[in-house]
């Protein structure tokens, strides 16, 4: 009987050997794949096991964390003035992941970024708890508050984007209606309910939409500054005060429709300055037609149209179409037809004009830090393009200043500060049946000729009487308070 016994011994050995081989396969060969599988809850547990770093505005954190007692996630995100800052921070949720800045800078905030490796190792040796690093933003708390409060008091949907023209630093980024990311930061049933209520299908206001970066609106008349820049840059007109070749009424080529102006305004052969002051559709439509699709598109592209910006939060690309019929080019050149832009894009256009023709790359992360505030990486301002020459930019500035001095943008005037701006009222919907968007773009110039802020405001007010909507009436006061907030904080 001993021979089969020895074979059974070998057989049992083989059983154990096959288990050993399988275990090596699992725990050595496949270990990393299994460990890092996004469905593996340990990935999330590790993510929430350490206090998350903070997002900082003007030296003060606008985020925080609390320790949770239930569940296996230890730390939960909290936000101060969450609704106001939501377009900047995005959210991070134990149940629903993260988005925007919380997601883009997750490596630093959660402490897993390689740049924190040295610090983490040091902490491990000295026995300190691992903590995430901080993200210092470029935002200006006062400007953000002015922007958000302005939109909130207005009551309609809208967005504000403000940039420091000389650097591209984003100073304000507001969207309304907004939401408080604190309410969805956890993983409990109340967080789940809050999340459901915020979804677009349950909430037509779509409060989680970051309108400043991710929504495109027809820019309406504010786009005329781009058309004016194209006219100057292409040498169609050389100064603000020479007569333009603008018949009135002007019938769009290939159609029998005259391009109408709002009211009875002096647009016939008007100078660029006067046309911008009164917002003449006929003049700028014809300029667009005269320049043609390619030139207009090229100018728009120089201002940043058609590309996504990474602030580092991605923006939606603004639209200016190609291969359009001449009449469509004319309509596009006054901010209608297909033309659509994010509020940030219009702020970029304004900032480039205010910065004497140089467009700086917009950014909102100033510095990445370890949890004890040692700098890891500092963002340096970066030139994105040069859409205009300095001379032409200054011509355009003087035209925009006229708009605020004597034209449609009087409500943006600030005592002792030179302000240039442009209003816009963008029609939308089939046959313009829906409420128009009220736009206002502007910049401020201090006495030393430096420009601390360029801002774009868009407001959609469903409750307002249609005639009342105009950029000058609804949006300009918000732009003014944002500019004032920035100027005051400079003092």
């Amino acid at each position, binding site marked *: 009987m001993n021979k089969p016994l020895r074979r059974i011994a070998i057989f049992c050995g083989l*059983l*154990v050997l096959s288990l050993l081989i399988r275990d090596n396969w699992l725990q050595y060969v496949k*270990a990393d794949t299994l460990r890092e599988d996004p469905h593996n809850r*340990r990935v999330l*547990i590790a993510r929430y096991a350490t206090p998350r770093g903070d997002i900082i505005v003007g030296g003060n954190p606008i985020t925080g964390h609390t320790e949770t007692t239930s569940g296996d996630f230890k730390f939960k995100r909290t936000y101060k003035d969450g609704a106001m800052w939501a377009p900047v921070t995005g959210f991070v949720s134990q149940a629903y992941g993260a988005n925007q800045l919380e997601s883009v800078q997750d490596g630093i905030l959660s402490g897993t970024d390689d740049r924190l490796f040295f610090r983490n190792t040091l902490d491990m040796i000295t026995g300190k708890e691992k903590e995430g690093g901080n993200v210092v933003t470029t935002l200006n708390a006062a400007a953000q508050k002015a922007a958000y409060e302005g939109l909130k008091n207005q009551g309609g949907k809208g967005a504000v984007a403000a940039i420091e023209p000389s650097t591209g630093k984003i100073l304000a980024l507001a969207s309304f209606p907004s939401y408080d990311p604190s309410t969805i930061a956890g993983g409990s049933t109340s967080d789940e309910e809050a999340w459901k209520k915020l979804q677009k299908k349950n909430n037509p206001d779509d409060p989680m939409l970051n309108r400043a970066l991710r929504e495109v609106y027809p820019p309406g008349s504010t786009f005329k500054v781009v058309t004016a820049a194209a006219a100057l840059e292409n040498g169609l007109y050389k100064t603000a005060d020479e007569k333009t070749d603008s018949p009135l009424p002007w019938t769009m080529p290939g159609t029998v429709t005259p391009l109408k102006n709002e009211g009875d305004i002096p647009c016939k052969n008007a100078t660029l300055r006067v046309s911008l002051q009164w917002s003449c559709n006929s003049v700028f439509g014809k300029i667009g037609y005269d320049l043609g699709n390619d030139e207009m598109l090229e100018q728009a592209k120089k201002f940043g149209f058609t590309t996504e910006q990474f602030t580092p939060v991605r923006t939606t690309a603004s639209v200016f179409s190609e291969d359009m019929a001449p009449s469509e080019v004319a309509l596009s050149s006054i901010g209608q037809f297909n033309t659509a832009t994010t509020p940030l894009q219009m702020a970029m256009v304004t900032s480039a004009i205010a910065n004497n023709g140089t467009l700086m790359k917009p950014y909102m992360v100033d510095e990445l830090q370890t949890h004890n505030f040692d700098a890891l990486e500092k963002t340096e301002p970066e030139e994105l393009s040069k859409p205009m020459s300095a001379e032409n930019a200054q011509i355009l500035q003087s035209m925009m200043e006229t708009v605020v001095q004597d034209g449609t943008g009087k409500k943006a005037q600030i005592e002792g500060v030179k302000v240039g701006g442009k209003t816009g009222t963008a029609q939308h919907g089939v046959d313009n049946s829906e409420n128009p968007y009220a736009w206002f773009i502007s910049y401020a110039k201090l006495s030393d000729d430096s420009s601390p802020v360029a801002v774009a405001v868009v407001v959609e007010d469903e409750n307002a009487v249609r005639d009342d909507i105009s950029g000058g009436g609804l949006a300009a006061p918000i732009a003014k308070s944002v500019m004032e907030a920035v100027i005051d904080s400079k003092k």
Partner: protein
Amino acid sequence: MSSTTNPPTHHTSTIGAIGAPSRRNTELALLVFAVVIPVFAYANVGLAINDEVPAGLLSYGIGLGLLAGIGHLAVRKFAPYADPLLLPLATLLNGLGLVAIWRLDQSKLLQQIGQAGGKATNQLIYTAMGIALFIAVLVFLKDHRTLQRYTYISMAGALFLLLLPLVPGLGADITYGAKIWIQVGSFTIQPGEFAKIVLAVFFAGYLMVKRDALALASRRFMGLYLPRGRDLGPIIVVWMISILILVFETDLGTSLLFFGMFVIMLYVATERTSWIVFGLLMSAAGAVGVASFEPHVKTRVQAWLDPMREYTLSREGVQDGIVHSEQAMQALWAFGSGGTLGTGWGQGHSELIRFAANSDFILATFGEELGLAGIMAILLIYGLIVERGVRTALAARDPFGKLLAVGLSGAFALQVFVVAGGVMGLIPLTGMTMPFLAYGGSSVIANWALIGVLIRISDTARRPAPAPAPSPDAEMTQVVRPS
């Protein structure tokens, strides 16, 4: 032969030769390690989870040490020549199992779903009962050959135990699909664990009697010795029973265990390779056949082939009449997250397996917290127990002892393979428990009894043979000497 011309020599090549050392002190030294290692592990868990040495450390250490000590004294007294490795290895596994169960008791998640909390205390009580049964086996089973008398009673007993979970009102369906428990008051018992031992007794007794008929009366066909039709009877009956277990108790593991044990013992008894071939063919046919129409078994097979799909179905709460479970995938993640060296005691998240995390899936906790290194060590310990069992079979002097020892060791090996293989995704999951490690009274008690029987057989095998009775014939021949 003359003593002067041929000096007396001991032929030590035979196993269990005269004068073999008892090795009881070796066993004692090993036992010290088997107690101290789990005590350190226990302290480790406490430090990792609560930042303090657990309050129960002393009582736990004394408890385990006492149980091991009493077991050792019983062996010293009643089975002095027993194999010195079996008791320490079983004690070590049992101690580590207790630590892992206590570690999972600390999990809030498992406490919430009633899968943890006080389980370690229960397990310590079960261990005490197991050691008591172990000692009882040593005390009352003076010679394992006594069991031979109960061959057919064992058969009836084994069938009775196996069928118990199918009795209406008694069977408890407490795990997904498999019906291998019975409910007695507040206790759940897994009769299959005990049936394993009883069935081994029956097989050993039956095969010892029938082995010649099974082995010799056969025809040669294509290089194989085919058994006669009437000799095929028993194997077909056992095969049918295991298929019935599979169908009615929907447990692939138990079925495989019993059939595998029978084939091993049949092979050893008859020395005919053809039985192995038959056994493999029949079990393959049975498994495939049942898996293709029995939905619970089918689900297990699907979960084995694509655990991620089962996880997704379970997460989405798909209602198609079958309970989808994410356990299989969670176990794989636990192993993978442990990596080579593991997270360390108390620092893993194997509680994510939720149901049966401390019983069927306890190996995943070891995998995550002790890593590849720990699992390899544990598998080797199991391998050692099995090989000591087979060695006992080799050393045994009587065929019944050989068959019983190899049957029990083979069943133990199969059980380890089926459970560990299932948890690690090598084969489909089954509802059995890792011997000694897993939480569960039936398992611990039955396996201590199994070790008790092996120790009894090994004691008989290694015991110095009684001096041969003086033969008058021998005396006569020795009278003839020169001068």
